[in-house]
């Protein structure tokens, strides 16, 4: 029966080609739009994750309570061992048998102080406050340059190659009148709160193009930060990111809960404590709002697309009014005709959906890898304090593999079913009258 219907559809292109094309296009659009929206919202979260929170962040219990003060005297110790444990023991499989996404873990030191620029006599020429991040740039396989998008953000000079190399925001470099290759002295406190001064060599300047976020920012290699702050094998935090850089709130929360249950001692203020991205300041609300926005926007779009395809199914059925009348007159039962129409709709819907899903996923994957650059538009907003990504990436997520079937198959079949209802309402006497004319 299916073979017979498929042959019929292939031989009569007027019945199959146009509906399949419409469904393919629509499903492609659905997949790409939803993938792009998910990617955009993920990009907004990723910016915060890269700079402040990670997808997961391990700190000491005491540090988490005072994190606004950057209290490095409460930093994590034996960081190499902690990271090794995290890599070995996670991913885990949760109680539902799902794998937690694979994370990569990287230490981070966040510190603040003054940046002092010397004149030719070594006396202070200029001084300004600085917020610095000690990031693991130089380890083998480190993805920090990639996730900070530093190659694109570099304004002048080069990326850090030595432990005392520093990248300074172009805004701060202009303000303090520092040139590439010059030495600048960081003045601050070690993890023992002792006074410290440390010379960094300015290897380059960067502009994250995220408004005022990087106004006083300095990026140094972790080893340089450790030397400056006397933090041997210590770190303010260990950041965890999924390999895909896609934040899945549900699994992040599950991993955080699991880790804290097993590894964290509520009576020990220095025991490690994991925070999911949503646990950061107001980030929970942002994650919830972006999830709700995604559901509402995706839902509305899906409903509109369903109406279009449902209507197409309906029109297809009605267009075949005469053919169906003839088949009934030839003795085919109403049920047979109705079932064959629905089967045809299922075949058309499935074909269009599979092809549309394939094309949609391909386009989404391409935009996931290459992004769409909005730099010029975002630069126009550079005075805004809002942290905005300037390249939007789509995101291929598991739901994109099946979401196209809702409009592609379901709506088409529903439309056909409604059109086919007319078959049952036609009287034989009326039918022959129609055929005579």
């Amino acid at each position, binding site marked *: 029966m299916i073979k017979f219907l498929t042959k019929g559809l292939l031989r009569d292109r007027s019945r199959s080609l146009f509906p399949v094309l419409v469904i393919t296009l629509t499903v492609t659009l659905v997949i790409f739009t939803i993938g792009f929206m998910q990617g955009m919202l993920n990009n907004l979260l990723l910016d915060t994750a890269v700079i402040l929170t990670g997808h997961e962040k391990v700190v000491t219990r*005491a540090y988490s309570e005072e994190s606004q003060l950057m209290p490095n005297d409460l930093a994590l110790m034996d960081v190499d061992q902690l990271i090794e444990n995290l890599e070995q023991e996670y991913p885990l499989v949760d109680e539902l048998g799902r794998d937690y996404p694979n994370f990569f873990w990287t230490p981070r030191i966040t510190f603040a102080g003054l940046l002092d620029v010397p004149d030719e006599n070594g*006396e202070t020429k200029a001084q300004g406050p600085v917020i610095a991040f000690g990031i693991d740039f130089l380890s083998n396989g480190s993805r920090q340059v990639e996730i900070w998008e530093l190659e694109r953000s570099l304004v002048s000079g080069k990326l850090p190659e030595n432990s005392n190399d520093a990248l300074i925001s172009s805004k701060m470099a202009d303000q303090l009148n520092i040139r590439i290759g010059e030495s600048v002295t960081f003045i601050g406190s070690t993890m023992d*709160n002792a006074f410290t*001064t440390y010379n960094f060599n300015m290897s380059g300047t960067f502009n994250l193009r995220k408004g005022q976020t990087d106004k006083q920012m300095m990026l140094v290699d972790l080893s340089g930060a450790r030397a400056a702050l006397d933090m041997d094998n210590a770190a303010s935090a260990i950041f965890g990111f999924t390999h895909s850089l896609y934040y899945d709130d549900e699994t992040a929360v599950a991993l955080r809960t699991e880790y804290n249950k097993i590894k964290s001692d509520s009576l020990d203020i220095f025991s490690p404590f994991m925070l999911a991205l949503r646990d950061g300041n107001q980030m929970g609300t942002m994650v919830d709002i972006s999830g709700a926005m995604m559901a509402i926007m995706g839902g509305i779009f899906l409903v509109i697309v369903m109406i279009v395809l449902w209507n197409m199914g309906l029109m297809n059925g009605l267009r075949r009014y005469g053919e169906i009348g003839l088949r009934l007159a030839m003795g085919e039962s109403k049920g047979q005709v109705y079932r064959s129409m629905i089967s045809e709709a299922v075949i058309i819907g499935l074909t269009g959906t599979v092809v549309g899903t394939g094309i949609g996923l391909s386009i989404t994957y391409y935009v996931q890898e290459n992004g769409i650059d909005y730099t010029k538009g975002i630069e126009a907003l550079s005075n805004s304090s809002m942290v905005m990504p300037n390249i939007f990436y789509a995101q291929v997520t598991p739901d994109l593999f099946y979401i196209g079937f809702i409009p592609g198959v379901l709506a088409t079949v529903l439309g056909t079913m409604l059109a086919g209802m007319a078959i049952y309402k036609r009287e034989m006497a009326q039918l022959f009258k129609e055929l005579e004319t």
Partner: protein
Amino acid sequence: MIKILISILSFAFLLGQSNDMSVQDIIRAMDENLNAKSRVLTSKMVVHGRRTSRTIESKNWVIGIDLAFTEYLSPPREKGTKMLKLGDKLWTYSPQTDRVIQISGHMLRQSVMGSDMSYNDMMEDRPLIELYEATLEGSEEIDGRSHWIMLLEAKVKGLSYPKRRAWIDKEYLLPTKEELYAKSGKLLKTSTMDGIKKVQGRWFPSRFIYKDELKRNSKGTEWIIDEIAFDIDIPESRFSKALLRK
């Protein structure tokens, strides 16, 4: 009845004492004990952090209230670090960076070597009589020793602690306990002193304990005076910026 009697006797005693010495006399005597024309001292600062304690040794040369030079002797990370105070200016030299850096602005409120003392605390050593208006609040026994309780309120602007309350030992004429307040009345720091002994005819403590009350879970900083000599000749050249790098 007994309570009333004790109160009357205490009040009479208080009046008797303050009749012997005016409030101004007490403050002046306290200043004379704590300040000198010059002093050279070797000390240890024990900083009790939330994780560990560190001991930092230093040697200080001080003339009056305007000139001070400090050289840190240990631990290795701090060894060779020097500080110079000339009037209201403060420079620090760190051998790791080979830089002389002026500490100014909000950095003066930062902790010295991670202790509970700020650079401002080190800078403000003018006699109390010049800075504060004192009021006698009462009397109290601490560890079996009789103390006056004195409220000191700033009479000049720009002090780190516009208000302080001192418990002054009646025999040693030293503030064995002090509470240092912000203008709003918020308690910022407390300090105590003990190990008081006679040095060159004056009572002087051998240990101070400072506690920054704004630091949560702070265990305070001990400042232990190992050696101290008053009123000795220190050449002016000791207080030159050139000496910071030597």
